[in-house]
């Protein structure tokens, strides 16, 4: 028993010794640096699917176990951080008292003998009494920024000067700051949430795209929660009391103690289309506060309220209303419909039931202007993006523009198509008719789909043609039929089969003949439409050609419908980020301390000098010595100037 206590105490001391040791400190600093790298090379907090794709099922699990998808709140990382915290605190605990004492201690116990050990030294013998010298020498040191203490020593005096004692203070500031910052950061971290999760009090919601209202209670966090950082999109004119906290591959719904209302949202763009600024007029209603707080926020100008901060972080469409005209590409009347971005609508199309998903609306589409137009950029006007999904669930994505676009001096309605998000839209161009609409093209397409009209056109070609026209008309009809069904590709295929029997250069001619025949047939078909026409024959022909090109490409378009944007009413949503950080002010205090402390340590090194005056029969021996805790060369230089100054003055005596 009796021996147990001291040994225990000794081992405790040994622990403090170890934990506060420099070796451990350096190891920890290095360890923290290395582990921080992980989170930068591996993108954090992505969806688990994307990780599985990246690493495969096995490594996915391994990394998951190591918490690599959210390193900075992984247990082991926090452990290293905590370790450094302990180590730094102990280090300060062990060094600070000594340093503070040292700041006051002028080392008056030094004697001529002990000082002769100093690297920086000088000696003079002066024909003056020690007492007479002491005042001038004291002044000499004071004038050069030293604090001075004087102590009689034997038959003489010891003047001890000290400068930059604050460098020790700097050490304390900088290292306490490290602790302060970590503590503040911990307060703002998501550790409490982690613990709740671990204790099973809350469950992460992983179902994507469900309404906030439908999120179950166990995935909701109370407004009493002390610290969090979440985001929310609020459409203009709407309000919210909940925000979303993204965690790993899911999210929590965090309740706010107040309501945020977005009165108005505004965006400005540079003329290259890049966003220049976006801002929201917010109204914050807190039952505790009485009258609502109104403020406009923008990027870099957040709203601070209590220990909350509300930031403008992004914007998206908030459910713009779109008036659409759906046109069957096989002719028929246009069907008008209303839609909201974000909505889904089912349509009975010829091919079967289709789901129309309106995904986005863009008011501006800035493209680089055609050369010679003088301007660098043009805004080609509004567009909207949607998906068409068939019963099998396969979807094509489209981007349709509201206004026709000038190309090679003609006007086209653009519709981009793609089968997956990572591909660029491939453009489908519908030529604008004499009235600047799509009507003309649609009628043409309708006629092509209509057997009777095709027959009529074939007749016309046949009658115009030479004898043997019977087969000619027949061929024309078949050509049109194939073209209508499969576009250029099908027509070409048809011609190829016809040519099988023929020899090389005969083929050439006949192929060209077939081509001409199809051209004539389409021409006839077109003529029968009696569309409103522009006067200029060339333009008319041009329209016909463009229309034929579009019809030939129609099968690749992939949709039986074309959607026109007739009118719109834009509604934007303001992307806000809401942070509650009670530890912020603590962290900022630490920031201040570390910056000041570090500069103190570096640029106010502690410098000590001593003057020993020993008097022997009227003459005085002056020993000058100095030492510094940092930057020996710098101090050597400083000491030299001090010494030379003294030499100059003392030798004059």
């Amino acid at each position, binding site marked *: 028993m009796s021996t147990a206590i001291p040994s225990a105490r000794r081992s405790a001391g040994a622990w403090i010794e170890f934990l506060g040791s420099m070796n451990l400190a350096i190891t920890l600093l290095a360890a923290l*640096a290395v582990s*921080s790298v992980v989170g*930068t090379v591996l993108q954090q907090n992505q969806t688990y699917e994307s990780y599985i794709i990246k690493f495969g099922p096995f490594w996915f699990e391994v990394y998951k176990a190591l918490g690599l998808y959210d390193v900075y709140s992984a247990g082991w990382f926090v452990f290293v951080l905590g370790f450094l915290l302990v180590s730094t605190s102990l280090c300060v605990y062990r060094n600070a008292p000594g340093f503070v004492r040292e700041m006051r201690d002028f080392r008056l116990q030094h004697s001529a003998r002990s000082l002769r050990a100093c690297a920086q030294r000088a000696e003079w013998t002066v024909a003056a009494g020690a007492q007479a010298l002491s005042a001038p020498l004291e002044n000499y040191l004071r*004038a050069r920024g030293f604090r001075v203490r004087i102590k009689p020593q034997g038959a003489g005096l010891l003047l001890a000067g000290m400068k930059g004692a604050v460098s020790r203070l700097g050490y304390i500031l900088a290292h306490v700051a490290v602790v302060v910052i970590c503590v503040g950061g911990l307060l703002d971290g998501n550790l409490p949430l982690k613990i709740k999760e671990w204790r099973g009090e809350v469950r992460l919601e992983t179902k994507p795209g469900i309404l906030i209202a439908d999120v179950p209670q166990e995935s909701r966090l109370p407004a009493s929660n002390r610290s969090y950082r979440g985001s929310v999109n609020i459409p203009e004119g709407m309000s919210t009391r909940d925000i979303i906290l993204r965690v790993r591959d899911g999210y929590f719904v965090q309740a706010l103690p107040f309501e945020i209302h977005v009165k108005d949202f505004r965006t400005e763009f540079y003329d290259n289309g890049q966003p*220049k600024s976006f801002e929201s007029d917010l109204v914050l209603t807190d039952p505790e506060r009485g009258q609502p707080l109104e403020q406009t926020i923008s990027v*870099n100008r957040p709203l601070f309220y209590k220990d909350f*901060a509300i930031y403008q972080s992004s914007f998206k469409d908030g459910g713009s209303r779109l008036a659409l005209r759906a046109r069957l590409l096989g002719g028929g009347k246009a069907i008008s419909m209303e839609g909201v971005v974000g909505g889904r609508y089912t349509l009975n199309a010829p091919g079967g039931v289709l789901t129309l998903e309106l995904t986005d609306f863009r008011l501006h589409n800035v493209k680089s202007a055609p050369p010679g137009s003088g301007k660098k950029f043009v805004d080609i006007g509004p567009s909207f993006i949607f998906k068409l999904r068939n019963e099998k669930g396969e979807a094509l994505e489209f981007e349709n523009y509201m206004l026709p676009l000038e190309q090679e001096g003609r006007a086209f309605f653009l519709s981009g198509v793609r089968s997956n998000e990572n591909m660029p839209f491939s453009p489908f161009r519908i030529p604008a008719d004499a009235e600047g609409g799509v009507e003309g093209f649609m009628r043409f397409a309708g006629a092509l789909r209509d057997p009777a009209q095709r027959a009529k056109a074939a007749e016309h070609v046949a009658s115009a043609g030479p004898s043997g026209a019977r087969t000619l008309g027949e061929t024309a009809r078949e050509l049109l039929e194939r073209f209508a069904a499969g576009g250029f590709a099908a027509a070409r295929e048809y011609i190829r089969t016809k040519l099988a029997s023929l020899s090389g250069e005969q083929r050439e001619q006949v192929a060209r003949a077939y081509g001409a025949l199809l051209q004539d047939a389409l021409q006839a078909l077109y003529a029968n439409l009696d569309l409103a026409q522009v006067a200029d024959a060339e333009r008319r022909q041009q329209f016909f050609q463009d229309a034929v090109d579009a019809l030939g490409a129609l099968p690749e378009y992939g949709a039986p419908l074309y959607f026109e944007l007739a009118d719109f009413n834009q509604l934007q949503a303001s992307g806000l980020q809401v942070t509650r950080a009670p530890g912020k002010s603590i962290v900022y205090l630490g920031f201040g301390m570390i910056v000041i402390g570090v500069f103190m340590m570096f640029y106010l090194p502690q410098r000590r000098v001593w003057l020993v005056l020993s008097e022997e029969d009227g003459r005085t021996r002056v020993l000058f010595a100095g030492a510094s805790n940092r*930057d020996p060369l710098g101090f050597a230089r400083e000491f030299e100037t001090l010494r030379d100054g003294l030499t100059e003055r003392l030798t004059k005596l």
Partner: protein
Amino acid sequence: MSASQETLIKDFGKPSFWSTLTPFDWLWAALAASGAAYVLYRYGAVMDGYETGILVGVTPLLIATGWYWKPFRVFGLAVAALSLSSVWLYGAQLANAETNFFLQYLLASQSAVMWMSALFILATLSYFISLFARSDYAGQIATTLTWSAAAAGLIGLLVRWRESYLIHPDVGHIPMSNLYEAFILFMLITALLYLYYERRYQTRALGAFVMLVVSAALAFLLWFTFDRAGHEIQPLVPALKSYWMKIHVPANFIGYGAFSLAAMVGIAYLLRERAERVNPQGVFATRLPSLEIMDNLMYKAITLGFGFFTLATVLGALWAAEAWGGYWSWDPKETWALIVLLNNAAWLHFRFTKGWRGAPMAWWAVGGLLVTTFAFMGVNLFLSGLHSYGSL
């Protein structure tokens, strides 16, 4: 006796700091102050409180720098004069860059940067010549060239600042926002830091090494300019529209500059250390400063870097709190800034408290340059994050 005692005490005192200032010092102060005053008077209306604060804060710093580091006054005045004349030549017409001879060949931002490039290359060569040909004359030329290159670079940036406003008031911003501008800033600051220590330690032998980093940066800059048209002035994304940029970025680059300086001194250290063993008569063993001096210089540079990098990281955190909604997001760039700090903290502790010196610390400083370089460029090139403004 007592009377003479009085005079004796006075004589042992020290002339006041103010009485040590020369007329040129006062001229410098006057010009700097009146320049700032003019800016306030002319643009005060469009500057927000913070910007005014920054200006008012920076002016005394500028004056003090000139007083403490005398050659800086000449540098500053030359840069000011040339930049202003460039702005004057521009007037309100960006197009003047094509027509006006001086702008076209000398003072337009792009031309000034090209001059900087040429001068830096010449400076590097001269430093090497002075080192290997043991020629002090070449050394003096090298120093002059480096000063001129730095001046040209700073003029390039200042004029670019003006040009951005001439393109369109909306587009106007301080040139610290993309890699092109960052690199000019880096070369400029590294060169100036070197010039300071060159004078302080009375040695030109290290110029060759430091200028190597600058030349490497230059190579990248030229590639970036001609291959990627990186020099085109782009409008700022909203997140960058903040007064923070005006202090955060320079602080960072003093850090980067100082760390690279330390690393290059480290290389010189290793060369001399080896040369002393292998051939004591060789250039490295005889021309380079003593190991002790280089070790000290390395330490000085790293402390400077650490101080400013700490400051920059803190400023960055404060800015992030306004722009991204949190003072710390573990975004790759800020994480790498932390890594750089931790690495150097470890270095300092090793040296300071274990009293380590010599080759190992030099190797470590050189290795540190890799870390710093990655934090500077690698992050932008290879990692995606909130900081992806200065990306390629």
